[in-house]
């Protein structure tokens, strides 16, 4: 069984992890066009090669990012989400009710 290094828990069998999809940035909910949203929601890079992905250590519910080669089945590196998402995200206006 493949091993994966969880940034929180160290090397674990890959069966302990849940795959969470490619890291893609969300379009603007208001200003981006329908086609852009359709691509974001349904389409994937799905590269034969390197890809950055969401992974979760299931037992501890710890999400992190993995860089992986989809051809060789190698995990290049794993790192905490905070390296990618460094700032608080806010959406334009606060609700009024």
């Amino acid at each position, binding site marked *: *069984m493949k091993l994966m290094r969880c940034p929180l828990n160290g090397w674990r069998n890959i069966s302990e992890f849940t*795959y969470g999809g490619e890291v893609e940035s969300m379009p603007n909910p208001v200003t981006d066009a*329908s086609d852009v949203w359709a691509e974001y929601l349904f389409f994937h890079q799905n590269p034969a090669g390197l890809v950055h992905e969401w992974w979760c250590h299931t037992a501890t519910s710890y999400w992190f990012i993995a860089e992986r080669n989809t051809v*060789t*089945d190698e995990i290049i590196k794993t790192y905490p989400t905070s390296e990618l998402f460094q700032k608080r995200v806010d959406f334009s206006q606060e609700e009024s009710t």
Partner: protein
Amino acid sequence: MPHALIKYGLSRSYPGHRHFNSRKELKDHYDVVIIGGGGHGAAIAYYLSKYHGVKNVVILEKGYLGGGNTARNTAVIRANYLTEEGVCFYRDSLKLFRGLSNEFGYNIMWENRGQLTLAHTDAAIRSFRWRAEVNKHLGVRSEVIGLDEIRELVPMLNMSEHARFPILAGLWHADGGTARHDAVVWGYAKGACERGVELHQLTTVTGLDIESGRVKAVNTNRGKIQCGCVVQAVAGNSSVVGRMAGIHLPIHTFPLQAMVTQPYKPVLGPLVSSPQYHVYVQQTSRGEFVIGGGSDPYPLYNTRSTLEMKESLAAAAMEVLPFLGQMRLLRQWAGITDMTPDYSPIMGLSPLENYYLDAGWGTWGFKATPICGVTMAELIATQRVPDLIKPFSLDRFYQFRQINEAGATAASH
């Protein structure tokens, strides 16, 4: 003994009649370039050449004929889908399968075994009834059946009410069956080659020359060819080839593993499937038991085997059919499947004027081979999208209109 074999046996020399063309130079131009020499590619070429008179066709295959998922699938042929679009499409495919041996003059060994899908929860019964009702309404034989009928069909099933997930009911699909999967692609390729189609194995497409929304030429490891139009039929590589055409696809590519036992005397007729346990089992005409289940947990373009999949398939298979425990596994393998968000294919027109898509075949591509050949050939020859495949257009995703097929595909390949 059949005439064909007697004639063969009595001839002094080997017949020497090749089923496919031998290796030769690529021509400069083809009217239709089919990327992918699997069942779909060969079927498209076959129907183009036989029924539409389109014969200047080339099939480009990077490996060997039918060496992708045509070789690796577990040959389950069924039409018990959930949506109207899906049921009609696979119903017509199944009909074609039945006549394929005589259509080809090549025995694909179709066998109408019937498929039994097991319900272990009341939610499953609801979803099976839904499928059965839709199927019946559209002329496909499916029925929710009770425990006595299940016992009669497959006496070896674990019918204990103390099982972790006791069997509560079944979906009996009398039309379901199987065939020799390799023979399907060979029959199509043979028929196409006899009509002038060229098959080029070990020929890899390396890029496409695109000008003002049209593919002008196809580059291969053996040189450039000009083309009238191009079809991509490369299950397991759809995103990669699509990218050459600048087309982004709603696909994630996952391995799908299966395993096979040694041959034993035949005891299991129907194809048996349990979505709850993620497993399906059938006994081939050679006597081997083929066991498969769900896809791998993460995307990969690699056919390596994993022990954890084998363990889970074995455990699941034995929960349903305990007698399998005595059998010995011979081999484990994998195919590479292009999964779409709505478990339905992507067929038809593309953003490029002369580029056609035959993609997103997930775990259901083999059973669609004949109908896919018929409809894609019609599209290419007539430039009109056949009604049967209109719902499967790439555009549906831009319209936020997916096909609701998710309920019928899990572990039933």
